[in-house]
């Protein structure tokens, strides 16, 4: 038995969020990923594979296998 390309694509994407590996359900958008993590998109900046994602693109950008996300926000600093 062989695993088709389609079968691989339907598997849960493995991604890395802030350095930690995670598996997410297939077909998520980045906006849905944030929602699932309990984050307010208005308070977070998303870097996907070293590219900053504009807020208006979060809903239209799919989470893909191998994606590396950095989710950052402002904290106290000098």
């Amino acid at each position, binding site marked *: 038995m062989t695993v088709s390309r389609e079968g691989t694509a339907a598997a849960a994407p493995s991604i890395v969020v*802030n350095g930690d590996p995670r598996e997410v359900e297939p077909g998520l958008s980045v906006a849905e990923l944030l929602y699932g993590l309990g984050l307010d998109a208005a308070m977070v*900046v998303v*870097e996907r594979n070293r590219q900053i994602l504009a807020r208006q693109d979060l809903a239209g950008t799919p989470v893909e296998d191998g994606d590396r996300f950095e989710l950052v*926000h*402002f904290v*106290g600093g*000098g």
Partner: protein
Amino acid sequence: MGSATPADGPLVIADRSFASRLIVGTGKYRSNAEMVSAIRASGSEMVTVAVRRVDLDRSRDEGILHHLDPAEFFLLPNTAGCYTAPDAVRYARLGRAAGLNDWVKLEVIGDDRTLLPDTTATLDAARELVADGFRVLAYTNDDLITALRLEDAGCAAVMPLASPIGSGLGLVNPYYIREIKRRLEVPVIVDAGVGTASDACLTMEQGVDGVLMNTALAAAENPVGMAGAMRLAVRAGREAYLAGRMASREIAVPSSPAAGMLE
């Protein structure tokens, strides 16, 4: 009667003006409530913030925007913690993407014991960020040549240190700071090293345009009290500078008339 102290104008950086010449950081406070109270007591309008990963396992309200209203304070994102120009550029872009403004307090550290800046990397990052449309306020050494190059690179302000970050050692080289102020046209903000009110006052007496501090407030026994003292000290130092100090001399000159003494 003599004339009053010359009227001071606002601190103008790029296209913005600020009534307060004191800029404060938001790090290391014991609580967010204390931080906000201290910032209000300082009278500062511009406050610095850092860019860090969201902690996915902790509470959801740790972000500073839950405590500081960008309508009340002008938030200046920094690149603190960056040791290379590419990292600083990356952090600056993340800060800008938060959507508040296109300003950045550029900081590229070269040594983790002294936190002294890597001036070569700072210059590289400054050039790239200016080309990318940022208003760059560059933390740097008290070195005139680097300060001049940062100005040439298009920085909106140059921010030499008083002494190492968080050290509280005060203004270690007033002469270098004065010379930087004399030679630059962009605002000179002394950033880092101020420990107490006299340090802030002495710094402002050198004629610089402003002072930026964080630990002096956050690590004071009473941050709100120290913030009020710093507000007065920055103002006093500025007014003393504008008023023009007397010449100092190493021999006493009596203040009361020598004539008219009794036999």
